[in-house]
């Protein structure tokens, strides 16, 4: 009989009609390292949020059994008290405080009503030894590299009585050396009896460290593999991750000839000085007129960063390499330059940086191309209504009125407004970043149909997507990215999801 520290039985979690988790079973044995694997959107994060009490008891179906008792976590603090600690990708440290202050933040060692700083320092040195981090505890967090910050975060969780440690893609932001150190540390903690759940996209890591691996797909548990029975291998994992059939939801497209190269990148790199690393590494890309190229890759692989570095570089990366539009070398100082050159970028985060949610639909549709409805700086508001009506019709935007605030529309209709806004600029090159994220199947099909219509009109499209089906279903050619670099180029014919996933998890 196995000794399970955690059993999650029949967990189902719905968001307004969509099942994010569907009868998930997940069991973790005491003292093992258990990897949780799945594509973006497979339900890993949701499952961990259910476990940690972010989604309180009662908002999901199923049981959480931890240490033999059924748990009812109403908030995160409840799960922390029970001994469950999660370390997210986005570290929750205070950059302007010292290492020791961070380790005991929210868990201060007290002497009467006051904080006992001396004891805090003594204890934090012990914690740092546990995670094998050799730094002065008085160092400020912001002066440490990401790898060391991660160790501080682990030290912080160890300062509380943690029985189950959950790490969400801990190595995503780390270089190879730091990653290896971290994995070594996890093994070390395992020998001290701490159970660990690790979410990871990097299969090599999984293979090197996991005792067991559970694979989620579309909110369902697919399989749990046991390393000690020799079940874990790259090909088995990939097969189980993707094994989805390509549904027949992609509109038929007639074969057609491509025109000249409209966009070319040579040795294109982008350095993010805030992160202190390259987000795009020596990318070479060509896009022909009338072509759809897909950019596949997991989240954080540099796809959006690549798009932004092309589109006038609003994040102010340090960019190197050549970009040619229609055979001419270009350098964009501002997004407006890119727009002038005929490039449009439909963002993945339409609510965050795509739309003006409090403004009405027609306002949003014209926002990137006010020239189209004005003469010497004076707007023709009637013309705006006309433009709005045209896009409402051609893109099938379902709304009671063009004067409705965009924030009140459904996701699919918001996406259409976002798309319409860029079509109105009359682009030659359209970059679509996750064009169908968070919208229903019907709206997806409409977006695909519009894309086909656009290339027929001579536009070229770069489509960034996490959905492998979509990439294979829509693209003429596919570039796969991993950690900022392009790891492969595939043609539409004969590409499999496995082949893409292999390149994406390099």
């Amino acid at each position, binding site marked *: 009989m196995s000794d399970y520290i955690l059993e999650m039985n029949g967990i189902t979690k719905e968001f307004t009609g969509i099942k994010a988790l569907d009868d998930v079973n997940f069991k973790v044995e005491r003292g093992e390292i258990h990897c949780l694997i799945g594509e973006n959107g497979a339900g890993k994060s949701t499952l961990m949020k259910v476990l940690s009490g972010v989604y309180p008891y009662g908002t999901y179906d199923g049981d959480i059994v931890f240490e033999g008792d059924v748990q009812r976590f109403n908030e995160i603090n409840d799960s922390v008290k029970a001994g469950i600690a999660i370390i997210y990708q986005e570290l929750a440290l205070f950059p302007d405080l010292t290492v020791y202050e961070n380790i005991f933040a929210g868990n201060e060692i007290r002497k009467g009503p006051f904080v006992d700083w001396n004891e805090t320092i003594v204890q934090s040195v012990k914690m740092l030894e546990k995670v094998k981090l050799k730094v002065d505890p008085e160092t400020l967090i912001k002066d440490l590299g990401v790898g060391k910050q991660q160790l501080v975060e682990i030290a912080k969780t160890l300062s509380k009585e943690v029985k189950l440690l959950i790490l969400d893609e801990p190595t995503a932001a780390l270089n190879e050396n730091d990653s290896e150190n971290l994995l070594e540390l996890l093994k070390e903690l395992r020998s001290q009896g701490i159970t660990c759940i690790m979410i990871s996209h990097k299969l090599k890591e999984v293979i090197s460290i996991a005792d067991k691996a559970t694979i989620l797909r579309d909110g369902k548990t697919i399989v749990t593999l046991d390393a000690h029975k020799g079940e874990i291998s790259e090909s088995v994992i990939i097969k189980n991750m993707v094994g989805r059939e390509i549904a027949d939801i992609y509109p038929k497209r007639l074969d057609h000839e491509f025109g000249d190269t409209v966009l070319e990148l040579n040795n294109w790199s982008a350095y993010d000085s805030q992160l202190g690393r390259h987000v795009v590494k020596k990318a070479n890309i060509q896009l022909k007129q009338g072509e759809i190229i897909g950019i596949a890759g997991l989240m954080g692989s540099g796809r959006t960063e690549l798009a932004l570095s092309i*589109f*006038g570089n*609003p994040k102010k990366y340090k960019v190197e390499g050549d970009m040619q539009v229609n055979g001419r070398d270009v350098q964009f100082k*501002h*997004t*407006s330059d*890119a*727009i002038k050159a005929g490039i449009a*970028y439909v*963002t993945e985060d339409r609510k*965050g*940086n*795509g*739309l*003006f*949610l*409090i*403004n009405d639909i027609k*306002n949003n549709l014209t*926002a*990137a191309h*006010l*020239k189209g409805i*004005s003469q010497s*700086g*004076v*707007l023709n*508001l*009637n013309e705006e*209504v*006309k433009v709005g009506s045209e896009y409402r019709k051609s893109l099938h935007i379902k709304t009671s009125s063009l004067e409705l*605030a965009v*924030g*009140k529309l459904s996701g699919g209709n918001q996406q259409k407004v976002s798309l319409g*806004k860029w079509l109105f*600029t009359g682009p030659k090159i359209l970059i679509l970043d996750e064009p169908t994220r968070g919208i229903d199947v019907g709206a997806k099909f409409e977006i695909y149909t519009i894309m086909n219509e656009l290339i027929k009109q001579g536009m070229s499209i770069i489509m960034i997507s996490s959905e492998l089906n979509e990439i294979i279903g829509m693209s003429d050619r596919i570039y796969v990215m991993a950690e900022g670099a392009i790891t492969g180029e595939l043609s539409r014919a004969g590409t499999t999801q496995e082949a893409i996933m292999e390149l994406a998890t390099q």
Partner: protein
Amino acid sequence: MSFFNEARFLIKTNIRDYGMYIALFVIMLTFSVMTDGLFMSSRNISNLLDSAGYIAVLAVGMTLIIVIRHIDLSVGFVAGFLGAVAAIFLTQMGLSVWLVIPIVMVFGIIIGLFNGFLVAKIGIPSFVATLAGMLIFRGALLNVTESTGTIIVNDDLFNSLGNGFIPSLVEVNGLHLLSVLVGAVGIALYIYSELSTRRNKVTYGFEVISLPIFIVKLVFVSFIIGYITWVLAGYNGFSWTVVIMLLVVVIYHFLSTKTVLGRNIYAVGSNPEAAHLSGINVTKITMIVFGSMGMLAALSGILFTARLQSATTTAGTLFELDAIAAAYVGGVSSAGGVGKVTGAIIGAIVMASLSSGMNLLGVGISYQYMIRGGVLAAAVIFEVMTRKQRG
């Protein structure tokens, strides 16, 4: 849709826009009743509008500043300082009014652009950058008035900006003819613009409000313009301050609602990141809005100096807070992207009405502050509630 249903629908959907007009109406009606009509007397209304002028122009600029999610605390003493500079140019250097006004306005623009530079290019929070400006210009005002103390301005042309009235031509039955004409032209222009907008919409095939409602609206607004004209014409007619205030509103209203620049300002306020990704130069827009604020601060300083016929060492004290209050009463939202220029003027008039009415009633100054604070809080509560409704 029946007449009343349509009217109710229009009021319900536009409650946010009509709210402050209704508030102003209620305030004026209350004071009129309580003062036996003294509040609505020609003389009082004329004084009230004149006293609102220098805050109203600041409130217009402040509204746009708040729309783009910033604040400008320096405007009070910038106004005070530039008012003193104008006085010095006029008295000590003997420059002509026609030269002084544009020069001082240009100074205002330069100061505003500098604030904008600190905020947009260097990235200093506007609260801090303009707080520094507030201290600097307070010092500058004291510095230029140090040797002389209060500077008396004797230039009649200049002073008429704050105290004078447009010429009357002839008085008919105690009414000033030119002012009546101005009012009549105003009504004619209003009706013409409404008609042409409607005709334009019809040629585009758009829906318009039904004819009865349209006529009621025309008659109602024309009546209000006519009534105000009649009230003012019974005293001294339109003052230059009112004329300047109207000009500022008309120009800024046009800029903010009918131009690419205006649309970009609201886009930046609504979502700066989306604005940047839409090809809008957020830095440039921020500079322009602060520049315009500086220009209006200069105008405010000119109006205030002209009104007092002198530049004092404390001119401009707390103007910035009055302007911010007026902007909020006028419906601007601190979350950005929402707020109208016309609202700012109404806000300024509401605040001036409260002071004027309470003075007439002999309410003590301590209670006056409390009541004005209460009205400001109520206006912001109303704004927050209607925004939730908007979603």
